C-alpha cells in the first residue's frame, strides 16, 4: 500500500471541503425552488387541480395540491401544524382565520408586494371581513364571498295567481298560506334551518338584519334580546313552523347543500340560502326542475340586508418559500400579472360570488350569470350584504353551535321568543 504525502492529504481535504461547501450551495438553490404545498377542503377538487396545473405550466410553479374532507379540514390542518408540518398555502373558513392568526399559524399579508392594489380593488365589506379583529392586518385573500338570498319558484307562484314575489315578510307568509290552502305546495317555504356552522345561525342573522335588527353590538356582545326586529323574525319563524309551512325535516338536514337540493324538486315556493346555490337551482337543468331560470332571485324582504361572509386563502407563517407561496396565493385570491384567472373561473364554473367588483364587468362572466340570475339584482343584493366581526372572537364557534339548538327550540315552540332570545344573550355572555 502506497503512502500519501502531507501535501496530497491537505490538497484532498481542501477539495473535499470545497466540494462540501459547493454541494451545500447547490442544495440551497434546490431549497429555493422547493414545492409550494397547498391544501383546501373538498369543493370541486378536479377544478382546483386544473388551476394548479395551469399555474405550474404557465408560471413554472411547483405547487402540490392536497384536498381534505370539509368536516375535518380545520382540525386536520391544526394537528398537522402541531406535528411540525408546514402547508404553505391553505384555505381558511372566515370564522377560523383569527384563531389561526392569533396562534401563529398564518401570517398577515400587508407587507407583501402588490397587496395594496388588491385591497383597493376589493369591496370594503369583504376587506373588513378578511382583516384581523383589530382591523389592522389583512389575514387572507378571498376564495369567494357569499350572502343569503331569497329565491322563488316562478311557475308555482304563477299557478297560484301570484303576480310578483313577496316584498315583505308578511306578504311571503301570506303567499305561503295561500299555496298551502290551495294544495299547490305542502310546505311552501324552505329556509336554511339545517344543522351546521353556515346554516341556521347565518339565516337567523340574515332575517334579523332584514328586520332592521342588530345581532351584535360594536363590542361583539349579542344584543338580540333588546332588538324588536329579532323578536319579529323569531315570531314569524314560529308561526310558519306551527302552520306547517316548512318541511320539518329541514331541522335535521346536515348541510345547506342538502337543503338547496330539496328546492330542485320544484315543490317549494320560496327558498332562502347562500347566493351561489342559485346557480345549480336555476342553471343546471340536469339536476333541477327549476332550471333554466324557472327559479329566480328576489330582493331579500324588509330592509333587504342579509348576512355576508368571505372565505379565504391564507399563507403559513412558517413557510420557507414565502415568495413562491405568495405568488401562488395571489394567483388564487387575486390577480397575477393582471389576470384574475382563478377568481373568474370560480364565477364561471360554480357561480361563486366575488369580492372584486370588476369581475362582473368581464363579458364572459356577465354572459355566464345571465343564464341563471339577474346579475344587476344580485349586485344590488350584494351591496346590502352585512358582515360582522363577532366571528373573529375565540368563543364564536362554540356560541354558534350551542345557539343553534336554542334557535331550533324557539322555532319548534319549545321556548317563547323573549325567553329564547334571552337564553341566546346569556349563552354568549357565559362564553365570552
Amino acid at each position, binding site marked *: 500500500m502506497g503512502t500519501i504525502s502531507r501535501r496530497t492529504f491537505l490538497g484532498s481535504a481542501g477539495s473535499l471541503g470545497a466540494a462540501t461547501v459547493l454541494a451545500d450551495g447547490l442544495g440551497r438553490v434546490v431549497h429555493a425552488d422547493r414545492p409550494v404545498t397547498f391544501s383546501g377542503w373538498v369543493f370541486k377538487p378536479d377544478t382546483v387541480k386544473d388551476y394548479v396545473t395551469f399555474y405550474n405550466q404557465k408560471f413554472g410553479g411547483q405547487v402540490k395540491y392536497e384536498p381534505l374532507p370539509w368536516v375535518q379540514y380545520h382540525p386536520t390542518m391544526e394537528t398537522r401544524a402541531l406535528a411540525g408540518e408546514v402547508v404553505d398555502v391553505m384555505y381558511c373558513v372566515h370564522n377560523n382565520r383569527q384563531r389561526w392568526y392569533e396562534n401563529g399559524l398564518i401570517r398577515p399579508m400587508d407587507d407583501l408586494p402588490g397587496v395594496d392594489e388588491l385591497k383597493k380593488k376589493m369591496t370594503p365589506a369583504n376587506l373588513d371581513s378578511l382583516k384581523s379583529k383589530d382591523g389592522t392586518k389583512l389575514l387572507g385573500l378571498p376564495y369567494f364571498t357569499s350572502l343569503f338570498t331569497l329565491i322563488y319558484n316562478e311557475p308555482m307562484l304563477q299557478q297560484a295567481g301570484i303576480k310578483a314575489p313577496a316584498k315583505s315578510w308578511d306578504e311571503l307568509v301570506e303567499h305561503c298560506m295561500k299555496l298551502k290552502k290551495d294544495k299547490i305546495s305542502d310546505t311552501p317555504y324552505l329556509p336554511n334551518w339545517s344543522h351546521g356552522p353556515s346554516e341556521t345561525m347565518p339565516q337567523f342573522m340574515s332575517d334579523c338584519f332584514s328586520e332592521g335588527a342588530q345581532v351584535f353590538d360594536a363590542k361583539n356582545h349579542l344584543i338580540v334580546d333588546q332588538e324588536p326586529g329579532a323578536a319579529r323574525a323569531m315570531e314569524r319563524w314560529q308561526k310558519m313552523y306551527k302552520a306547517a309551512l316548512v318541511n*320539518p325535516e329541514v331541522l*335535521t338536514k*346536515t348541510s345547506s347543500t342538502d337543503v338547496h337540493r330539496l328546492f330542485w324538486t320544484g315543490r317549494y315556493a320560496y327558498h332562502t340560502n347562500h347566493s351561489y346555490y342559485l346557480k345549480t337551482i336555476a342553471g343546471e337543468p340536469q339536476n333541477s326542475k327549476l332550471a333554466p331560470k324557472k327559479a329566480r332571485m328576489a330582493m331579500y324582504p324588509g330592509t333587504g340586508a342579509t348576512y355576508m361572509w368571505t372565505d379565504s386563502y391564507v399563507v403559513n407563517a412558517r413557510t420557507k418559500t414565502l415568495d413562491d407561496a405568495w405568488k401562488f396565493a395571489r394567483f388564487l385570491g387575486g390577480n397575477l400579472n393582471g389576470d384574475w384567472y382563478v377568481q373568474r373561473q370560480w364565477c364561471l364554473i360554480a357561480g361563486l360570488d366575488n369580492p372584486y367588483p370588476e369581475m362582473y364587468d368581464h363579458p364572459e362572466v356577465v354572459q355566464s350569470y345571465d343564464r341563471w340570475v339577474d346579475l344587476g339584482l344580485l349586485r344590488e343584493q350584494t351591496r346590502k350584504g352585512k358582515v360582522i366581526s363577532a366571528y373573529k372572537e375565540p368563543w364564536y364557534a362554540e356560541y354558534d353551535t350551542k345557539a343553534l339548538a336554542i334557535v331550533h327550540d324557539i322555532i*319548534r315552540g319549545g321556548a317563547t321568543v323573549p325567553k329564547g332570545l334571552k337564553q341566546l344573550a346569556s349563552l354568549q355572555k357565559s362564553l365570552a
Partner: protein
Amino acid sequence: MTLGIRLSEGRFALLLVLPALLGIFAVVLFPLLYSLWLSFTDVNVLRTSGPVIELFGVRVPLFRWVGLQNYVTIFHDPLYWSSLWRTLYFVGAFVLEATLVGLGMALVLNERFAGRPLMRSLLLIPWSLSRVVVGLLWIGILDFEFGAFNGLLYNLHVVDGSIAFFKDGFSALNVLVSVYAWNQAPFAALLFLAGMQSISADLYSAAEVDGAGYWQRFRHLTLPALRPILFLVLVLATVNGFLMLDLIYVLTMGGPGHDTTTVSWLGFQTAFTFFKFGQGTAILYTLTALCALLTLVYHRLIVARPEPAA
C-alpha cells in the same frame, strides 16, 4: 447452528410476543394514556404551552396541566347531563333491540329450512356496510321529501302526506336506535348462532324425550348455554352504543336542537368544533368509565352468577 443462548420457557415466550406487545403499546396503550393525560390539560394544538417529550424522534407536547378542571367544567354543564341521559336511553334501547333481534334471527337461522345457507350469508350484509352508507341508505328510505317508505305508504293510500320521521327529537332518536340496531343486530345473530351450534344436539333430544316443549328447551337449555355469548353481545353492544357517532353525523348532526346529541357527539363537537381537546377528551373518558362499569355489572349478572342446580 445454535446461538448458545439458553432462555427459560417463559422468557422465550415473552420474546416471541414482544413485537406484538410493542405494536399494541404503540397503537393502543400509548394513544389511550396520552388522551387520558390530555383530559387533565389545557390543550391548544396551535400553541403548545407546557413541556414536550420526544419519543423515538417524535415530538409529543404535554400541554399545560389543569388537574380536574376539565372534568369540573363538563360536570357543571347542563348540556353534558342532558346528553348523558339521552345516551343512556339510546344505549339501553339499542342494546335491547340489537340483542333481541339478533337472538331472534339466530333462532330462525338455527332451524333447518330451504335457503338457509343463503339467508345466513345475506344476514351479514347490513353489518358489513360502512355506517356512512347505512345512514345514507336510511335517509333514502325515511326522508320526508323523497323517502321510499313514505312513497310506499302514500301509494298504498295509508297516508295522505309524508311522515316526518326526524321531525321531533324523540322520534329522531328512536330512528337512530333502530337504524343502528339494523346495522349491528346481524353481528349479534352471528355470535348467538355460533353459540347455538356448539350446543350438543343430544341435549335437545334428551329434553324432547323428557317432554320439554320449544319454549322450555329454549328457556332451560339454549339460554343457559348462551350465557357467555350473551355477555359478549351485551358488552360489545353497550360499548358500540356509547361510542356511536357516525350515524348521528350523517342523519341528524345532533339535532333538531340538541335532541339527538349524545355524549360521544358532544365530545366530538367539543374537541373538533370548539377546539377544546382537553374538555373533549374528558367528556369521552366519562364514557369509557361508564363502559367499564357496565361491563363489570354484566359480568356480575351473567358470567359470575352460579349455574342453577340441575
